[in-house]
């Protein structure tokens, strides 16, 4: 039997396999390049980039909960210029497409980020982050209202030839409504879910564990919620869906693909197992082989209900 095909097309990009890091959990790629060859990935997704350097939120920024991780990083990043000057040269050395997650406080900031990044060699696509729960202005404000979401995507669409992926928040009444609005506004794919808002309290001190009081929940705890969101969105839109939320194993990744995701992203699992993504890619290959499936695309949305 020939080697099964693992490659997928997302937003006009051909990925050699459907596995990529979730933005914000993989820095700008350098840290994990000590653990495996980044050329093995389907794509490289970097931490949110903002126009100006962002200091982030006060510590503590992390708290572990049952099978989950609460974070309130607050988009700490060195800003667009440093990203282009100091991070892109490293990222350009790798074959997988580089997807840059962008976050703005205003519509104008999203547009400026998109324009500037369109001129940068090696940037393959933009993931428009309209879903960060950890910054007061912007971020999620654009992602909870279909009109605002459409506004950002429309504005970015006009100023960039790059493929656009809208990153969606689950902290809404109906995520399919936002997904459809983003699709109609011209985005090429959607990625979901960003973290679920949550909190944890130290009962001895009667204080929240996060200095920011609330944070975003990720990790295995959110997987069923994420899977359900992906399943619903995949049936509501025609553009490809990148699924994420609590994926740790190839089996988890397959669940997302069967629910309708064309590709998957792995975040929190990498913290515990730096090579999780590589193991997942291997596991997908093994599953296809074992089930006599030639092409992974056959699995997308193939859940029998």
């Amino acid at each position, binding site marked *: 039997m020939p080697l099964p095909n693992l490659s997928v097309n997302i937003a006009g990009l051909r990925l050699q396999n459907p596995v990529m890091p979730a933005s914000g959990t993989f820095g700008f790629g350098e840290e994990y390049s000590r653990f495996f060859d980044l050329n093995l990935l389907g794509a490289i997704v970097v931490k949110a980039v903002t126009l100006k350097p962002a200091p982030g939120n006060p*510590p503590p*920024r992390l708290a572990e909960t049952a099978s989950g*991780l609460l974070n309130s990083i607050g988009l700490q990043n060195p800003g667009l210029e440093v990203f282009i000057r100091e991070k892109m040269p490293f990222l350009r050395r790798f074959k997988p497409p580089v997807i840059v997650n962008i976050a703005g406080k205003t519509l104008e900031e999203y547009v400026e980020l998109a324009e500037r990044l369109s001129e940068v060699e090696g940037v393959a696509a933009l993931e428009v982050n309209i879903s960060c729960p950890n910054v007061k202005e912007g971020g999620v404000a654009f992602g909870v209202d279909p009109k605002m979401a459409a506004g950002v995507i429309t504005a970015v669409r006009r100023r960039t030839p790059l493929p656009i992926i809208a990153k969606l928040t689950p902290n809404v009444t109906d995520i399919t409504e936002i997904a459809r609005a983003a699709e109609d506004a011209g985005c090429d794919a959607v990625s979901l879910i960003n973290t679920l808002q949550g909190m944890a309290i130290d009962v001895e001190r009667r204080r929240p564990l996060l200095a920011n009081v609330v944070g975003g929940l990720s990790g295995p705890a959110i997987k069923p919620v994420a899977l359900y969101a992906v399943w619903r969105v995949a049936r509501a839109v025609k553009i490809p869906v990148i699924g994420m939320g609590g994926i740790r194993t190839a089996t988890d990744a397959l669940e997302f693909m069967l629910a309708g995701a064309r590709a998957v992203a792995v975040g929190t699992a990498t913290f515990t197992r730096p090579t999780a993504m590589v193991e997942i890619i291997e596991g997908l290959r093994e599953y296809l082989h074992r089930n006599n499936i030639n092409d992974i695309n056959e699995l997308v949305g193939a859940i029998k209900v």
Partner: protein
Amino acid sequence: MSAGVEHIGLICSNVEIGPGAYLMEISLPEVALRARPGQFLHLRCGEGMEWLLRRPLSVHDVDKKSGRVSLLYQVVGKGTSWLAGQKPGINIDVLGPLGRGFSLPPCGGKALLVAGGVGIAPLFFLARELLGRGVILKFFLGARTRNLLLRLEALQRLGIEIEVATDDGSAGFSGPVTALLEKSIPKEKPDIVFACGPRPMLAACAGLLAGHHIPGEFSLEERMACGLGACRGCAVPVRSPEGGATYENVCTCGPVFAAQEIIW
């Protein structure tokens, strides 16, 4: 491929040496050779059970000859309870050595070391290295109560001068270890002070050192996820070179910081 960061080590011993405090020895030859005082290991806890993030623990000591690395930890929650239950013969998954350790003075000079509770963990290895470099040392060890003065005998065996303090007066000076430091600084005139312990203790030490213009290097703690600089979860506020404030990662810029760099 991993440039020696990912390791599986065999637990050689895991003994309770004080109430809820354990000394664990792991066979990790590569780490034993490369680790420097102040660096830490990021340990996978709870394998096969529920999912947990890794837990950071300082390198307490190394024995290059036997290839063993020891850790000293206090049981405070899920991860450390799991560690306490692990028996010799079990394999453990660690990343390390990680982070930036203490800067070791070339040789000679005088250093004071200040530990609060389990803060002795990184300072023991440091003390041994400093002795090897002919640095004159004095160790201040503080704890809540007598039986939490961890590794006191081991320190005594190193043959260094030690002063102890307990909050309840059950051994040595009755009061905070920082009071001992305060009295000693004018007398000892150290070239540098190394410290590790609870945040308030470190803040008090930093204040004392600033008053005497003595440099200090402190090992800090913050909650960690990746331990590698990728997630920005372990931020600590520091003075930026331009005079403002900024956040740095404890995992990669630290865990050891210059005392005056930190915004307490």
